[in-house]
């Protein structure tokens, strides 16, 4: 085979090829990513789309969980205060029922229990950021109002609907318990029992006071039962949060193995490219000045 000065072109080709591979290596090192554009690895790039979506979803679910937890905790602590208030009403009911009190003291107790009812109404109207926690989905206004007309003495203007908050793929948590279910249940009606107790103390009827006190006691267990719903939801959320965190970690590691750069390999490749570029340059420097003419003087 004849050899002509075309080797200049070949050396240039090989220098530009190694430079291109160096550029790729440097870009991968700089971004720590093996796939910087879809054509670098179309399959991985397409999978990365889904991976990033799942990662963003998981972050949102974690945020939702924290919002849900704060709602549930506010509701739960309101209910704890309701139980405390109802317990004090029971104490006063027992005091009123032992038949040793003067009528002035009875009036005082009646107004004190009425104060307890106001406090319970206030707690039932607890709101977080403008949302009334016990109004069902009609949560824009205070759901409980004093109203002499119904026998319960309190009217409920909320509804019986519930909301749920998504906390995972096809997974959601109930974020509220409607107020009528807690404070106006068929058995253990909180508002009814307090109103009955107030009326009984005012009427100074020992039997009525006893019955009403028992009603309040039954109301306490209703409220405690509902409070447990919040408690177990909170526990569920804590578990969900933990699993989301580990999901995020595994998504991150998937992402890394999909499109992440293997730094050690790239660094090795870069060294190889540099070596071969250096070799090409040295070859060029040695071969280029060689000519027969140098030896013919």
């Amino acid at each position, binding site marked *: 085979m*004849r*050899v002509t000065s075309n080797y200049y*072109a070949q050396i240039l080709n090989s220098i530009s090829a190694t430079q291109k591979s160096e550029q790729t290596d440097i870009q991968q090192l700089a971004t720590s990513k093996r796939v910087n*554009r*879809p054509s670098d690895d*179309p399959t991985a790039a397409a*999978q990365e*789309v889904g991976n990033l979506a799942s990662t963003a979803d998981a972050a949102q679910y974690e945020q939702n969980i924290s919002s849900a937890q704060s709602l549930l905790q506010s509701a739960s602590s309101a209910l704890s205060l309701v139980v405390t208030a109802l317990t004090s009403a029971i104490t006063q009911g027992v005091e009123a029922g032992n038949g040793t009190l003067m009528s002035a003291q009875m009036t005082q107790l009646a107004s004190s229990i009425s104060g307890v009812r106001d406090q319970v109404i206030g707690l039932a109207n607890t709101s977080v950021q403008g949302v009334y926690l016990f109004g069902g989905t009609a949560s*824009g206004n205070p759901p409980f109002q004093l109203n002499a007309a119904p026998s319960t003495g309190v009217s409920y203007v909320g509804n019986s609907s519930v909301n*749920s908050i998504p906390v995972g793929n096809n997974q959601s948590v109930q974020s509220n318990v409607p107020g009528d279910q807690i404070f106006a249940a068929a058995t253990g009606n909180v508002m009814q029992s307090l109103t009955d107790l107030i009326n009984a103390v005012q009427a100074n009827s020992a039997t009525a006071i006893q019955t009403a006190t028992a009603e309040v006691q039954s109301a306490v267990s209703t409220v405690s039962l509902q409070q447990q719903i919040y408690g177990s939801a909170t526990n569920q959320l804590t578990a969900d949060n933990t699993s989301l965190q580990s999901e995020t970690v595994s998504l991150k590691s998937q992402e890394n193995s999909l499109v992440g750069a293997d730094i050690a390999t790239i660094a090795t490749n870069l060294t190889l490219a540099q070596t071969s570029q250096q070799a090409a340059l040295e070859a060029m420097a040695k071969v280029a000045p060689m000519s027969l003419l140098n030896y013919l003087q």
Partner: protein
Amino acid sequence: MGTLNSIMSIAGEGLQASQASLNVTANNISNSDTPGYTREVVNLTESQTVQQGGLNLGTGVTMQGFTSVRDQVLQLQINDQMQQAGSSLAQSNALQQLETGFSSASGLGTGLTAFFDSVSQLSTNPASSALRQTVMSSASTVVNDFHSAAISISQLQTGLNETVPKSVTEINQLSTQIANLNAQIISAGMSGQAPGALVDQRDRLVSQLSQLTSLQTTHTPNGDTLSTGDGAPLVVGSQAFALTSATGTDGLQHVYQGGTDITSSLTGGSLGGTLQVRDGELPALQTKLDNLASQFTSAINTANQAGFDVTGLAGKPMFTTSGTTGAAASIQLALTSSSQIAASSDGSAGSSGNLSKLLAVQNTALASGMTPVDAYSDLVYTVGNASAQAQTSNTATNAALSQLQAQQASISGVSVDEETTNMIRYQQSYQAAAKVISTVDSLYQILISMGSTTA
């Protein structure tokens, strides 16, 4: 026996042959770096012998001219590879531009996810106007993302379309020049001149033409015949046939040869690559994107219409598009206020029941059989794969091309060392022939002074 005169004339021919050879060597050396130059060699033959006294006597050397050392089959192979290299380069350049619009880590994919996440967040407080506003702004981000994806396709299509008439003009210029050279080569051949330089020029132009378009070359005694892929002639002998370009019914530039639309048959060269991306990859992507936009719109609209807004009114469509074709470019946010987001399933402002319907769109297959994010992921794959294939094919053809070019250089290229060696050879043979002449001359002197007295 040969006479002194015949020796003199033999040596004279030797001088001429050496001079002619040196001439070729000088020309080769001068053109050693000229692109497209094919080295020449001198054709020397032994002159006819004469019979004298029963002996065959040599009469010297005859210079029959020079030949360019070329391999026509190799040249055809190179032109073939150049068509493929031109085509894959044009495709790879175009598709790489498109890749930036279809990234995995930005654009529509993240836009869609952010939209669904904002809906998910609204579930935590459906009456909150701040959270509703977040949904509105993420919805308009989705709209913008659809627009910019659609624009990145249509802009590229427009850009590619604009290059078509330019390529056609270039092709026509080259065809005309090649036809002229064909004519000159034929007439040079008839007048007995070596057409090497003209053929070099023509081969260079044919190579340039190969980079532009599909090309079939046939060598004929009347010069090269060139035609496009499906046989539409570009050059026949000394005649060039111009291509024309005009806007077709689809609003894109089409290429015509004598009234026939040959657009779809052009696959090679940069024009072929451009047309393949313009008429193949881009419309396919556009359709996928439009389908996604219209199917996403209809799914979200159905979900929003199933619920009630803040004031308890029935939900309205959230997005509008004008038809399926062009849906991605025409999609708009139809809601004018964040209060119109139909979060409620029971008509009360605090209900988030209907948001689960909106959220369900995220993980439900659309009519395309894919969820919205999967459909975008499919677009990313399609763009990435097309671009990667074009790049791979370009790298492969370039490697093949440089092999062929090395082979061609080995046959037709000038080796300065070889020419230097030749130069010394011709110099020495010139010196030797001159020495013969001076020897014969001294023999004449002896002959003339024979018989005369020496001083």
